[in-house]
């Protein structure tokens, strides 16, 4: 009689071997300080360049020209809008900073904001990563170190460099899902919880006077702006109000970022 529990063992053996192999590779990567992931990320950058080249060639050939032109127009308008929003946010940051500086009798000249940095291209989509990270096309060879601040052209901090390869680096977003950052607005310090995509929320006492579009600074990131107050939800029945903090630039439209080295 044939055993009804008889199974084909071959696929399970193969699966077991692959499970052991991927675990081994992951452990090798951890123990060697990321040698496997740096190779893979280098490959991702090359793939990205090729895909951009092929996409440009197809668009340049006139194929799908109507769609491509509409997409290009849409993209350029979205980028223009994002730039205006960011400029408005940056203006508000400068205005508040100017007011604060005027209140000092003696202004201490600080050069920390003029530290030399590197401009690097963003080589991955921020929507691809489930961990709130993205890749930039510059690494240790370009002088980038872990912990460096990653800024937009308007001076907003979008993240910090969390890992570096030879010519690539990983940036962990300030507002990554599940991340928490100490923030400051309206003269009070509070904890903001990131929810990804350049958004965060925070609970502050209702007595605190905070306006919409007010800049939000991060003391741990050199008092630099990390976003603006997008909206405020408060109820008379609650002792606290909820702030929705947004980055005034669309993360998906970021093409270049400015990397500022950390001062020790």
């Amino acid at each position: 009689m044939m055993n009804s529990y008889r199974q084909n063992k071959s696929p399970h053996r193969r699966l077991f071997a692959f499970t052991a192999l991927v675990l081994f590779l992951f452990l090798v990567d951890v123990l060697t300080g990321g040698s496997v992931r740096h190779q893979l990320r280098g490959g991702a950058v090359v793939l990205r360049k090729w895909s951009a080249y092929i996409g440009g060639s197809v668009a340049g050939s006139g194929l799908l020209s109507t769609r491509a032109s509409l997409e290009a127009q849409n993209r350029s308008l979205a980028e223009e809008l994002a730039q205006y929003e960011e400029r408005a946010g940056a203006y508000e940051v400068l205005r508040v900073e100017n007011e604060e500086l005027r209140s000092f009798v003696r202004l201490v000249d600080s050069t920390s904001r003029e530290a030399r940095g590197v401009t690097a291209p963003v080589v991955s989509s921020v929507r691809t990563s489930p961990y709130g990270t993205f890749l930039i096309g510059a690494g240790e060879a370009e002088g980038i170190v872990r912990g460096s601040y990653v800024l937009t052209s308007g001076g907003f901090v979008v993240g910090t460099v969390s890992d570096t390869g030879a010519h690539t680096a990983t940036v962990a977003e300030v507002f990554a899902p599940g991340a928490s950052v100490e923030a400051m607005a309206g003269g009070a310090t509070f904890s903001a919880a990131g929810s990804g995509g350049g958004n965060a929320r925070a609970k502050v006492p209702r007595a605190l006077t905070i306006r919409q579009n007010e800049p939000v600074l991060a003391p741990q990131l050199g008092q630099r702006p990390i976003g603006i107050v997008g909206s405020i939800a408060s109820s008379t029945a609650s002792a606290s109000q909820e702030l929705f903090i947004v980055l005034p630039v669309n993360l998906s439209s970021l093409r270049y970022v400015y990397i500022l080295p950390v001062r020790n």
Partner: protein
Amino acid sequence: MSIFSPSETKVRFAVGAVGIAGAFFLPWWVPLACMIGLSLRYPAWEVLVIGLVMDLLWLPGQGFEIPVFLLAGIALVWICAPLRQQFLR
């Protein structure tokens, strides 16, 4: 066989290829959907590869982090094995 009734191997290859390419270029839920789809239908080693690539590419790298996609891939492949044998034979 017509092209409109692709063989199981072709479907598996296509979904695996989309999953691996998705780890590089597409939103993170696309590789996850491919992992779930593959593990429900096949004893697919591709699920483990997609999980490993996702974690190696996108983990922040600040100390030890839990490789969520790799662990999810292992869990999917082995948890779905009895289900596959029970219902899809």
